[in-house]
């Protein structure tokens, strides 16, 4: 593994060095450099410091580990690979992703998983260990979003308007989603053991990576949110 110092390089130059590297990279001294690992398919990148916006955009199979917090649009439009964040993430993690997984140990901002979708054999997964802001899974079209609500600040697991415009995929919230108001066009109900089993391998992996007690995490009831039909907005614009 080679060590790259982010100081005194711009975004493009840093990304050039990452792409040109023949082995895995550790980037130290990160302070807001954008697009790290964009489109990358073949390496593991460890990041120390604060990576900039659109970390792992269009990621195509590479693995990214962030030691601390990440900023906005983590994994924007990613296709395959893994992004693991040990701190919090900003707004819109997993924006329009269609494959791969994003694991965030802490909280996420607004619009986590917005426009997330499935594509052929791909089905993306986002797991958020803490809580997240409003508009979780906005316009979600596919894939799985799990929010565990392990935050200790007493704040509700998710903000306002979760799953607005959702028309595909699943959202799984740990607990009973007390006080959360869902829109008309989705169904939120207590998850069955089959529902949880579907997500279990991912949650177990999440717990292993972050050193959490998997039995404790899984001992809680879960709430499953799905759209009412495969195409609830069918009649809103045109017959199709």
């Amino acid at each position, binding site marked *: 593994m080679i060590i790259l110092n982010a100081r005194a390089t711009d975004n493009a130059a840093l990304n050039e060095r990452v792409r040109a590297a023949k082995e895995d990279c550790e980037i130290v001294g990160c302070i807001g450099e*954008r697009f790290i690992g964009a489109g990358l398919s073949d390496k593991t990148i460890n990041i120390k410091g604060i990576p900039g916006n659109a970390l792992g955009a269009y990621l195509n199979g590479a693995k990214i580990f962030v030691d601390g*917090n990440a900023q906005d649009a983590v994994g924007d439009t990613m296709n395959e690979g893994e992004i693991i964040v040990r701190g919090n993430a900003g707004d819109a993690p997993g924006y329009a992703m269609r494959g791969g997984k994003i694991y965030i140990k802490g909280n996420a*901002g607004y619009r986590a998983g917005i426009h997330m979708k499935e594509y052929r054999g791909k089905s993306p997964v986002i797991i958020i260990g803490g809580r997240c802001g409003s508009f979780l899974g906005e316009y979600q079209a596919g894939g799985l979003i799990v929010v565990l609500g392990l935050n200790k600040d007493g704040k509700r697991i998710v903000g306002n308007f979760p799953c607005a415009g959702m028309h595909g995929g699943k959202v799984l919230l740990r607990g009973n989603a007390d006080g959360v*108001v869902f829109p008309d066009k989705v169904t939120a109900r207590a998850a069955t053991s089959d529902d949880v089993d579907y997500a279990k391998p991912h949650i177990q992996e999440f717990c292993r990576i972050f050193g959490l007690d998997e039995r404790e995490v899984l001992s809680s009831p879960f709430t499953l949110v799905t759209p009412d039909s495969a195409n609830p907005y069918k009649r809103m614009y045109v017959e199709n």
Partner: protein
Amino acid sequence: MLLKEGQVRIPSGCAVSAVISREGELMSGEKIVASMVPMHERSNGLGGGFAGYGIYPDMADFYAFHMFFTDKESKKACEYFLKEGFEIVKAEPIPVRKIPSITDEPLIFRYFLSPLRSRIADAQVDEREFVARAAMYINVRISGAYVVSGGKNMGVFKAVGFPEDVGEFYRLDEYGAYCWTAHGRYPTNTPGWWGGAHPFSLLDYTVVHNGEISSYDANRRYIEAYGYKCTLQTDTEVFTYIADYLLRRKRLTLEETASVIAAPFWTTIESRPLEERERLTYLRNIFSGLLVTGPFSIILGFDGGLMALNDRLKLRSMVVAEKDDKVFIASEEAAIRVLEPDAVNVRAPEGGEPVIVRVKEGKY
């Protein structure tokens, strides 16, 4: 001829940053300028600016008018007007450092002013209203003259350029402020020009803004009915006048002002406890024309404090952190880490949730 808002559209983001010391400690401008560097891509070189509070301790009793003039005639006309209402205690060019990245500057002057008692009495208004009206008169009536800022013991420094260059140009390392706000501009819809750079200011109120006001014309029409004139031809200006109107003239609290500008949705209001529901309903109904829609993150500076606010949908990013007596606010955490690598309590406020920080009484 320079085309302004409404005459041309340049589709395109922005960066904001701020630091405030609750103990009123004066900080050099060096760090706030450096904090803009990691966010360089959020600007495009068409505008950068800073507001500093507590920068003129020796002249703290006088209104400090920072001025842009396009030529000597506009300067002469403005000075003629100022002499009628004010004693000009001191007039001087604002010291700048000539650097290749900042060019085509207007004439940049500052005036320390003491309003004449007799003229205030004639106008039958209080002192701050008198000064606000003078600033508005200059912007509207004196061609080529623009009041960049006009509060006491504060000032705005702005230009066409990247924020880090603007900071060097104005020699901000030579000033000490208990509160700094900063802006890097990426003009949406309007060309970059000196008057159009942020912060926008009236009296001691300053606003830096990342976003685009969808409700601009509705807000402008409302506020212009109360004697304000939007002359700088860019949407952010209207925030400044809304803040002045609600805080100074209507005497609303900062929290109430936030509930007007970023009023919660009716469905959200319905879910609140009775007393709060009534308060929010009242504010939304009375000041419906001042609801600002569209994406924004703003930092409002004023004597002894600041308020940061996101639009209710939170369509722009904003991060807050602290360390000891200092609070840091920026579009990105990276900027905060430049200001203070060991900052703690890093968090992103909710949409419409104001973050209000005040300097301790007697410390500014």
